[in-house]
C-alpha cells in the first residue's frame, strides 16, 4: 500500500489500513519534511500563541514506526505508472503498490495581478511561521479574500497587534460559505476589533507599500496575504490519465477510475449518498479524516460507501462558526436561537428534510445542537419546525 500525501487524510489512512487488518507494507510519502501535522491551527493558534509554535503532529516518526509503516518525507511523487502499479519519486526511486491512495490535498490559489509575488499564502507550517513573523504590532496588513482563511488570518493578525484590511471582491464576506445573517455577524465582530472590510473591491496591482484597487483606492500594506481559495492538487492524477471532475473523480467508495487507486481529502470529488448522489469536493478537516477511513477500509477489501455528513468549523476571535450538511440543498431556513447571542440556521428542502445546519456563537455554544443536526441530517429527518425554533426543546429527542 502506498499513500501519497501526508496530511490529515494520509495520516488517517495509515491508521485505517491497520485497523482493517492490513499487515503488510505501508509507505507514506509526503512532500514536506515534517511528518503529518494538523493544519487547522496554522491560521489561528500557531500564529497567535505567545511562545514559538511547534507543529501539532498527527503521527510522529515513532508512531509511524510502531504502526509498521515507512515514512518518506521531503519527497514528491513525480509519476504513476499504472500499467506496472509503480510510483516514481523525484530522486528516481521506484516503488510498487498493490493499492495506491492519493491524498495530495489542495494548493492555495495565487493572485494573477502585477506584484502578486509579494502576496503571502498559507498552506503549510513554514507559511505560518512567515505570517507570524510578518504580523507584528503596528504592521499594516492587507488580506485579499474575505473567505474563511482570509478572515481567520485577519483575526489572528489583529490579535498580534497588526492593522488589518480585508479586501473582498464580492458584495459581502463568506459569500460562498454561509448565509447573509451569519456573514453579517462575522463582519460585525471583525469591525468591532478594528478590522476594515472592503467589499466590492478588486485588486488592480500590488505595489511595494500598498495594494492598489481597480477604483483607484490605495490600501497601505507592508504585508499582503492572498486567501482566495484553493485548487485540488491533481497534476499527478491528471498525468496518469485518471478521470477528473472538480478534483480527482471518485465513486462513493473513494475509488478513482483505476480500481487500484483511491483518493481522499481536498484533492477529490465524490457523489454523496446522503444528498442524492450530488458530487461534492470538501475542503475540510473532518471530511479528509472520514474519507481516508472509508478509502482505507475499501483498499483492504471493504465495500463501504462514504456517507458521513460534511462538517466544518471556523474560529474567529471568540466566535466559532460551524456548518453541517449541505445548506445549499435547502430552500427554506428556520432559525434556532441559543444563549449568548448564538444561533443556528436549519436548512430544509421542499420535502421538509433537514439538509444543512449553520450556526455561529461564542466558544462552543452551538456545538452540541449542530452535532445533533448533523445526526438528524444523516437520518434524512423531517423535524417539526416548532421544535427547531424552540431553544428549550431538546433536539436529541428527535433522534430516538
Amino acid at each position: 500500500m502506498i499513500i501519497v500525501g501526508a496530511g490529515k487524510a494520509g495520516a488517517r489512512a495509515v491508521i485505517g489500513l491497520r485497523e482493517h487488518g492490513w499487515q503488510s507494507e505501508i509507505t507514506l510519502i509526503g512532500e514536506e519534511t515534517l511528518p503529518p501535522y494538523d493544519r487547522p491551527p496554522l491560521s489561528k493558534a500557531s500564529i497567535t500563541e505567545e511562545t514559538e509554535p511547534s507543529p501539532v503532529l498527527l503521527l510522529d516518526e515513532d508512531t509511524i514506526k510502531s504502526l509498521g509503516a515507512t515514512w518518506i518525507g521531503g519527497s514528491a511523487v513525480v509519476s504513476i505508472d499504472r500499467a506496472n502499479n509503480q510510483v516514481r519519486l523525484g530522486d528516481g526511486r521506484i516503488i510498487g503498490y498493490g493499492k495506491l491512495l492519493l491524498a495530495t490535498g489542495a494548493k492555495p490559489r495565487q493572485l494573477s495581478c502585477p506584484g502578486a509575488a509579494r502576496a503571502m499564502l498559507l498552506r503549510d507550517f513554514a507559511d505560518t511561521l512567515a505570517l507570524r513573523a510578518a504580523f507584528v504590532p503596528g504592521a499594516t496588513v492587507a488580506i485579499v479574500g474575505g473567505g474563511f482563511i482570509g478572515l481567520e488570518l485577519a483575526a489572528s493578525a489583529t490579535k498580534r497587534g497588526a492593522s488589518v484590511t480585508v479586501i473582498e471582491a464580492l458584495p459581502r464576506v463568506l459569500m460562498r460559505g454561509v448565509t447573509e445573517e451569519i456573514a453579517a455577524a462575522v463582519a460585525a465582530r471583525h469591525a468591532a476589533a478594528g478590522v476594515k472590510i472592503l467589499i466590492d473591491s478588486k485588486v488592480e496591482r500590488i505595489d511595494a507599500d500598498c495594494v492598489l484597487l481597480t477604483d483607484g483606492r490605495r490600501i497601505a500594506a507592508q504585508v499582503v496575504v492572498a486567501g482566495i481559495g484553493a485548487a485540488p492538487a491533481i497534476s499527478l492524477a491528471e498525468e496518469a490519465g485518471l478521470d477528473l471532475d472538480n478534483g480527482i473523480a471518485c465513486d462513493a467508495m473513494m475509488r478513482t477510475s483505476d480500481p487500484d487507486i483511491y483518493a481522499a481529502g481536498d484533492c477529490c470529488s465524490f457523489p454523496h449518498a446522503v444528498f442524492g448522489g450530488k458530487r461534492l469536493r470538501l475542503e475540510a478537516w473532518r471530511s479528509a479524516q472520514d474519507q481516508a477511513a472509508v478509502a482505507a477500509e475499501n483498499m483492504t477489501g471493504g465495500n463501504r460507501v462514504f456517507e458521513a455528513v460534511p462538517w466544518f468549523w471556523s474560529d474567529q476571535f471568540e466566535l466559532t462558526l460551524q456548518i453541517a450538511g449541505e445548506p445549499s440543498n435547502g430552500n427554506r431556513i428556520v432559525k434556532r436561537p441559543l444563549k449568548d447571542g448564538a444561533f443556528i440556521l436549519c436548512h430544509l428542502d421542499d420535502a421538509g428534510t433537514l439538509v444543512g445546519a449553520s450556526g455561529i456563537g461564542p466558544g462552543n455554544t452551538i456545538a452540541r445542537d449542530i452535532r445533533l443536526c448533523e445526526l438528524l441530517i444523516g437520518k434524512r429527518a423531517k423535524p417539526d419546525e416548532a421544535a427547531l425554533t424552540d431553544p428549550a426543546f431538546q433536539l436529541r429527542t428527535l433522534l430516538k
Partner: protein
Amino acid sequence: MAQWIAACSAGDIDEEDVMRFDHGGRTFALYRSPDDKYYATDGLCTHEKVHLADGLVMDNIIECPKHNGRFDYRSGAAKGAPVCVDLKTYPVRIEAGKVMIDIG
C-alpha cells in the same frame, strides 16, 4: 489521598447528559448515564483542551464539541482518531442526593 467533595445535586444532570464542574482551579466533567449511574472525568479533551461539557453524550460516549473526539466516560478510554490519549476518571458516589467526586 481521597478528597471527596460535593459537586452538585443528583438532579442537576439529566440522564444521558454531562455537566461542567470547576473546583480549585481544575475543571471536571460529570456524567449521568442512560442507566442512571454517575461518572466523572477531567473536564478538558486530551486533544485540544476543549471543555467536554459542551459536547454530546450518547450512551456511554462523550463527544468533544470541537473535533468529535470520542471517549467512554466510564473508563476514560479514547475511542479513536482524532483522540488517542485517554481521559482521567474520578470516583463518584451519591450521598444524600449530592454527587460526590473524589478529586484527591
